[in-house]
């Protein structure tokens, strides 16, 4: 608990509860003033809930049409009520949930205001939120797998980038998208192995090890794309995985088109999120992994192979990041561009922390970041007078608030970052 010992005694949680209550109240006031008074009366906002173009769902549901100003006031009232409840009796364990609700209300009010007198396709927005969160989620899951065994993986960015490159070049060379995906996953695993060797065998500081991977990936992909891909453009044209609809499920309104009419990466994502969540918290594998992250010596004394477990998980984490990296070229853009990951790996790291080192939490956090990303493009279409630069800052600011403990103190794997020395 050295970190705790250094910081001067954190004020007891009572003050935090009060701060949150005041925050809720401010949100309520902001909604009422900005979005309520900011919209003139009698104007409506229309939210589209169907796919644009031909409706493929089993039945169409009508668009959601709400009065812009009245909605804002209603949401402000709900917010104020929650603020009052928070200040008087508090929500205890559900505080975080309520915080989420308040933020959601604020965002909904904001959208209602932003799209006043216009219509906004909510469905498209949900879908782009999901798609933009895909690489972030894979990155965050990679981080969860590594850090649960107490190896910090700051090299996620480099793993994503290398896998994006490899996915494109292998996919193009073999003419098979699946081989490209496999190549990306393997290169991710290889870099995971490198990180493992550096941090476990050679006990290089893990942050330095990860930084090396990032710099190396940036250099080598830049070098090779300048030297090879620019000359042989055909090596950078793998095509993309097409979405395929899951029969039945994809016909459900709202949920269907967003979740069940996507390409293989999204289905892999669901699979890995669920599998790693169940695996970590309900199986022998997970219990052992977590024990290695929390108290490696205890794990060692009951015969669990600490270093092996770390190697395995870091490599696995690399594979997961590799799949996420392949998404850039094979699932989204269809071509490799220099530094195309543009910091998604670091946001994944942030999502991991925000999601409390839990796969499901990490996924939800990644969705928040994906939402901010997609909101920014939507807003420029709606011509909202907020500089897009500030919206793009939002995920990073949120992350800083999270690590500064503004939301709630997270339990970090106790041995995180420390090498394990057996004898």
């Amino acid at each position, binding site marked *: 608990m050295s970190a705790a010992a*250094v*910081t001067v005694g954190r004020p007891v949680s009572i003050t935090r509860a009060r701060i949150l209550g005041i925050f809720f109240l401010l949100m309520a006031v902001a909604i009422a003033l900005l979005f309520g008074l900011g919209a003139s009366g009698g104007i409506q906002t229309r939210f589209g809930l169907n796919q644009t173009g031909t409706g493929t769902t089993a039945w169409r549901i009508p668009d959601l049409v709400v009065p812009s100003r009245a909605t804002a006031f209603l949401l402000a009232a709900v917010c104020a009520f929650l603020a009052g409840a928070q200040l008087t009796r508090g929500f205890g364990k559900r505080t975080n949930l309520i915080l989420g609700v308040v933020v959601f209300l604020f965002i909904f009010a904001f959208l209602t205001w932003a799209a006043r007198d216009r219509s906004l396709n909510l469905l498209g927005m949900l879908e782009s939120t999901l798609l933009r969160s895909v690489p972030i989620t894979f990155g965050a899951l990679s981080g969860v797998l590594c850090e649960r065994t107490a190896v910090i993986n700051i090299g996620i960015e480099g793993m994503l980038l290398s896998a994006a490159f490899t996915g494109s070049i292998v996919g193009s060379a073999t003419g098979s998208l699946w081989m490209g995906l496999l190549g990306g996953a393997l290169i991710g695993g290889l870099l995971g192995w490198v990180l493992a060797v550096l941090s476990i065998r050679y006990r290089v*500081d893990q942050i330095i*090890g990860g930084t*090396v991977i990032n*710099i190396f990936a940036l250099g080598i992909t*830049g070098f090779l794309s300048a*030297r090879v891909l620019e000359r042989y453009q055909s090596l950078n044209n793998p095509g993309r995985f097409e979405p395929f609809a899951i029969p039945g499920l994809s016909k459900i309104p709202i949920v269907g088109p967003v979740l069940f009419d996507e390409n293989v990466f999204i289905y892999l994502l669901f699979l890995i999120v669920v599998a790693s969540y169940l695996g970590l918290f309900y199986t022998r594998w997970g219990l052992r992994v977590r024990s290695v992250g929390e108290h490696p010596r205890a794990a060692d004394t009951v015969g669990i192979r600490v270093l092996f477990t770390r190697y395995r998980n870091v490599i696995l984490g690399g594979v997961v990041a590799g799949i996420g990296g392949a998404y850039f070229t094979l699932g989204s853009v269809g071509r490799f561009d220099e530094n195309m990951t543009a910091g998604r790996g670091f946001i994944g790291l942030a999502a991991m922390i925000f999601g409390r080192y839990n796969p499901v939490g990490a996924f939800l956090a990644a969705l928040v970041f994906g939402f901010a990303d997609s909101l920014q493009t939507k807003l420029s279409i709606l011509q909202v007078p907020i500089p897009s630069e500030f919206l793009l800052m939002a995920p990073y600011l949120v*992350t800083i608030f999270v690590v500064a403990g503004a939301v709630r103190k997270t339990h970090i794997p106790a041995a995180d970052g420390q090498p394990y020395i057996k004898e």
Partner: protein
Amino acid sequence: MSEQVVSPPREQAPPEPEEPPQEKARWWDPLVVPVLAVVTALAIGALVIVFSDTEILKSWAGFFRHPLDTLRVSWDVVANSYRALFTGAFGSPAQLWQGISSGSWHEIQSALSPLSETVVTATPLIFAGLSVAVGFKAGLFNIGGEGQITVGAIVGSAAGFTMTGLPGPIHVLVVVLAGFVGGAIWGAIPGLLKAKTGAHEVITTIMLNYISYRLADYCLSTTFFRRPDRTDPISKPVVSAFPHLLGSDLRVHIGILVALAVAAGVAYLVNRTTVGFEFRAVGFNSDASRAAGINPTRIFVLVMTLAGGLSGLAASNQLLSVSPSLTPGFSSGFGFDAIALALLGRSNAWGVVAAAFLFGALRAGSRSMQAATATPVDIVVVIQALVIVFIAAPSLVRAIYRIKARRAEGLEIVMKGFGA
């Protein structure tokens, strides 16, 4: 549970007053690993160059028929690339000698031009490397150089193109200070966050890097910054510049002297002053420092502010020399190079200076190399990454060259998890 996982078992304690293994230290000992690291990185870089060249790959396909040809082609490519790299960095001695013997100042100048470029490239790296090195001394990992340089450049350029009425030297000083202040502010934020909330500086500095890029984008979209005659995002230029050192034909400027002075100052601060003692004490053991009456939170803020300021000086230096305008991507990776430099220089101010000259040479040389041999400049980034690996894992180098371990090797930094 503050149970030390790494600590040796208690009963292992008493190596009583026996003589510690004090081998005779030789002056080159501290240099062995860095030198071998650079050599090994260059060798691996050569392999990368060879195996990414399609011509060579074709010739390797016929390796068993014409083994010598294959090796010769490979050797030629590597040798040409590295020769171009070397002459691009240091110039050719023959040309210099010719210039001196003919007494033509013009010829001497053109012979010195590569060296001048190396120094010009190395200068900002010294500032940025010192920034990370100071952080390491206090146990802080400043990955925020990029952001600090960007914000330093925002503030520095604003000062540089607004205060036009000042006399030259004063104006230069103002830009230098403005860059320092901008970087210092951006550095102070993670310092304060760590001091007040325990937020891990690695995460906050990375996030602040991205925020700074957006901030620069935003600034460049305003009429205040935007150069009116241009459509691309570029700011109005800073109106003054560092004077050149060796005539106007060579780009080398007094920034390098400033950098060396700052390095000397940092070395003195860290090693000889009470504040430096506090930096190092907190860096090694913040708990014991606190118990001894040092306030670690104050040190965190102080160190990060200083580190940010040093990065900011890199921005000032660029604004006053080679890139007088703020642009997107102004910092062009200096913040990440800085990590390699601090590691290579072992967090020691003069070590950083030496490392910066090495990297400056690689950088400057790689530009001529790309022009001469079509080997892309990115190879230098690969070499840099490899250098960090070998520096950070001295046992890896020792394993490769089968040399014995000596004491006082390796890095003394181990980060704790992201204290959220």
